[in-house]
């Protein structure tokens, strides 16, 4: 419970939106990046290197007035496989979304500079080869990448 208190103090609560908690420390901007939130014109509340009982340190992201879908949550799974995602409505947790590494992920940037997806407007698709090491293969150029190369 001590952890909860620290979080509340560090990053103020949301009335409506999504809270993504237990993002690995220092990785929160990758979540912002994958979800393309740089252009989001509403409040993002970000906490970095907060104390966490379970993980030592963690990041947290609160997105005002936006409710994550299961697909979006799964995208985050590559960066933050242990994330806790809560949908907040009227200050309360209305829904919890379980993060699980999907078989297929979309929308990440292919790490191969010669991949067609880097030139034409094509939505990227990766099949997850190994859910533990998070190795993925690009559906188009067929290159295999570690998660750090596509995130």
């Amino acid at each position, binding site marked *: 419970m001590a952890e909860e208190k620290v979080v509340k103090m560090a990053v103020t609560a949301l009335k409506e939106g999504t809270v993504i908690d237990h993002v690995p420390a220092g990785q929160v901007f990758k979540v912002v990046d994958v979800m393309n939130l740089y252009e989001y014109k509403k409040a993002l509340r970000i906490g970095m290197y907060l104390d966490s009982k379970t993980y030592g340190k963690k990041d947290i992201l609160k997105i005002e007035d936006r409710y994550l879908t299961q697909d979006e949550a799964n995208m985050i799974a590559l960066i933050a496989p242990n994330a806790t995602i809560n949908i907040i409505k009227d200050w309360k947790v209305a829904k919890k979304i379980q993060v699980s590494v999907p078989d297929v992920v979309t929308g990440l940037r292919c790490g191969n500079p*010669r*991949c067609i997806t880097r030139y034409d407007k094509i939505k990227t698709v990766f099949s997850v080869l190994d859910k533990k090491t998070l190795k993925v293969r690009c559906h*188009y*150029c067929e290159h295999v990448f570690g998660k750090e190369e596509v995130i």
Partner: protein
Amino acid sequence: MAKKDVISIRDFSKKEIEDMLKLAEKIDSMAEEKRLKLLAGKKLATLFFEPSTRTRLSFESAMQGLGGSVIGFADANTSSTQKGESLKDTVRTVEKYCDVIAMRHSLEGAARAAAESVSIPVINGGDGANQHPTQTFLDMYTILKLKKKIDGLVIGFAGDLKFGRTVHSLALALSHFNVKLYFISPDSLKMPQEFLDEIKERGTNYIETENLAETIPELDILYATRIQKERFYDLAEYERVRGFYRINKKLMESAKPELKVMHPLPRIDEIDYELDNTPYAVYFEQLANGIPVRQALLCRVLGVL
């Protein structure tokens, strides 16, 4: 149900590979008169955004040998790509003029992206350093034709194993069978780990080495490749590794008499001309096999045979 497209050897199971090779054999031995009726009235568009001699001409010859006709371009500079048209729009346009597309593109994944944009079949004639499945089928067909089997063979790949897409695809196709593979290359042109992992997962034994001379006596097939200048970012590195090996009569002194030397061509100086008239050299025969194999693929994707 037949596959709509031929994009990557990864899309084909062992049985599908074997079926395709059987179909190529059937077409190879078919009377010309009968063959000429197979795709009569059908049109193939060859879209070669990247230059090619063998693959494009082989596709065109294959189609004409089936009674079909051919349209297309051999250079991206003569297409609307030069005006900034996207690949998707180019193939959607071409789709209206033909029944099947064969294409080569310098970007990896281009053929898959094209295939997803159109409803007619697309055959990949090479996408960057990624895949070249029709070459793989003709290589497999050549091995089968020469050795009457694939299981039990010892096959060595020499040269540019890092960028050589023909090597990657053929090694993957062979790993469906009970073969032993040697990967012979300088350290900087080694087979990428991801392919080695995939081959290993299928239970195929392989050995990596830099020494071609010591490996030669083991081999039933030597698959030589060109060190591809166009794949190097660093030309100084290219100069360091070109001429890493030279296959000549002297090297063959320790070879099994029935060793066959294959090469996807073009060659630069990795195989001496003096080898051409020996029983080892099969690269021109290999080249010729591109016709029945591409005919089989064209017939299959168009639902004929």
